[in-house]
């Protein structure tokens, strides 16, 4: 069977004058839908990698394929409906919460699954919100969850999560973790989750991708990554994840 997602020799250059690589030789494969934590100190290009995977940014080199179909050959819209990026900074569209949640059905002229939206509102701890409330008036944490929910309505095969619990309190964070794990089990969605929260990575992921030294340095099961990291960089990172290189 063809792997769900294949990343081959991907390179991205910095935007500055000398065009030095931000990362290169990034290789990875998602064979089966799984939960992956994408770790690494800031500035390694974790978000950029996710954006490349979602076809929002162009890679300077390399090949990305989904079930054997190359990203270059697929209509970018079709690709993005299968591989969906959820940004760290949630963007609310003008109008109500409900309007935001309906975005996918409006864009693709598909029926709006109100039941699903309501269920997810509850699971993400947003049941207190009036659907008619102006989305711009929400708190940062509420926006982050509405933004996540809006993308879930697309039912992508691969979900790219960019620090989506960064501005949440502990309780809400745990709700989001549970809801996403539940979603993964039921829907069989693969997730690549950028986080700086190592407890979260241990809790939710089965695999860790660790970025460092300008590439994808380690790719192992979550257990072996945290117990026996292969590189010194990863060992140091596990001790103090927030430290810059």
């Amino acid at each position, binding site marked *: 069977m063809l792997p769900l997602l294949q990343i081959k020799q991907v390179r991205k250059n910095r935007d500055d004058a000398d065009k030095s690589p931000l990362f290169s030789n990034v290789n990875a494969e998602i064979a089966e839908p799984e939960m992956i934590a994408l770790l690494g100190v800031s500035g390694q290009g974790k978000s950029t990698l996710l954006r490349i995977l979602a076809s929002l940014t162009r890679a300077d080199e390399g090949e990305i394929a989904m079930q054997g179909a190359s990203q270059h050959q697929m209509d970018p*819209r079709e690709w993005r409906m299968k591989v969906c990026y959820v940004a760290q900074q949630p963007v609310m569209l003008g109008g109500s919460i409900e309007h935001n949640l309906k975005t996918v059905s409006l*864009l693709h002229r598909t029926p709006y699954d109100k039941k699903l939206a309501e269920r997810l509102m509850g699971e993400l701890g947003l049941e207190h919100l009036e659907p008619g409330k102006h989305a711009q008036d929400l708190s940062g944490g509420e926006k982050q969850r509405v933004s996540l929910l809006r993308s879930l309505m697309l039912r992508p095969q691969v979900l790219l999560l960019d620090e989506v619990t960064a501005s949440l309190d502990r309780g809400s964070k745990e709700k989001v973790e549970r809801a996403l794990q539940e979603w993964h089990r039921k829907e069989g969605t693969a997730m690549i989750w950028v986080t700086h929260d190592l407890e979260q990575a241990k809790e939710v992921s089965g695999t860790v991708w660790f970025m460092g030294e300008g590439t994808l340095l380690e790719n192992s099961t979550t257990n072996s990554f945290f117990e026996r990291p292969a590189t010194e960089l990863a060992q140091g990172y596990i001790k103090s994840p927030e430290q810059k290189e």
Partner: protein
Amino acid sequence: MSILALSFTLLFVMITMLISVWQKLGLERDIAIGTVRSAVQLLLVGYVLQFIFNMRNPVLIVLILIVMITVASINAAKRGKGLAGVLWKIALAITATELLMMGLLLGFGIIEATPQYIIPISGMTIGNAMVVAGLLLNQMRREVESSRGEIELLLSLGATARQAVQDAMKRSVKASMIPTIDGMKTVGLVQLPGMMTGMIIAGANPVEAVRYQILIVFAFTSSAAVTSIILNLLSYRLWFTKDLQLQPIKEKG
């Protein structure tokens, strides 16, 4: 007006020059170039028009309209630097506007099909379309820059280019039309438009002059709308790469 009287108008240029020198505005060079250019261009146009009016040859009329559209398009395209093929799209939008305007004006017999109506009214329509096209491109650049997050969010949910920039487009079209509409509201109260003033000075009955001015004001509004919409529909895809990603567009004047 005699040539002597015309020469005296250089006094106005001297006042401007003196202010520039006195206030160290550094505009002397531009003022000199502007003075020479406007005088030469206008005198030349005067003779060309005189020639065309006498010839009454439709080919010449078309030729002069083509020149007007070309110059207007090149000028407006400066606002769309970095957008591939924007010049042709502007030219197409302005030409379509001009054809529509002239079609209606001549078709309904609002104006006579003679060079002395067609050329000045076309000149004004094309000039206004040029300003609107420039404003639209400028505004669109700003909108795309400031709504980057919103546009990329929509793209990430599988939107088409059109769907992703719909709101930014709407805001830009609106912004590009506002000056024309505002002008419509204050015309006659704040400024007496050039054409009307010219006609009155040349001895026309003010009421007659006003009728033509009304025609121009109304024609301007719809030419602004038509140019803006057409140019937008032709150019919105230019803000994206072929992979449907937002172009990295640098801020330009």
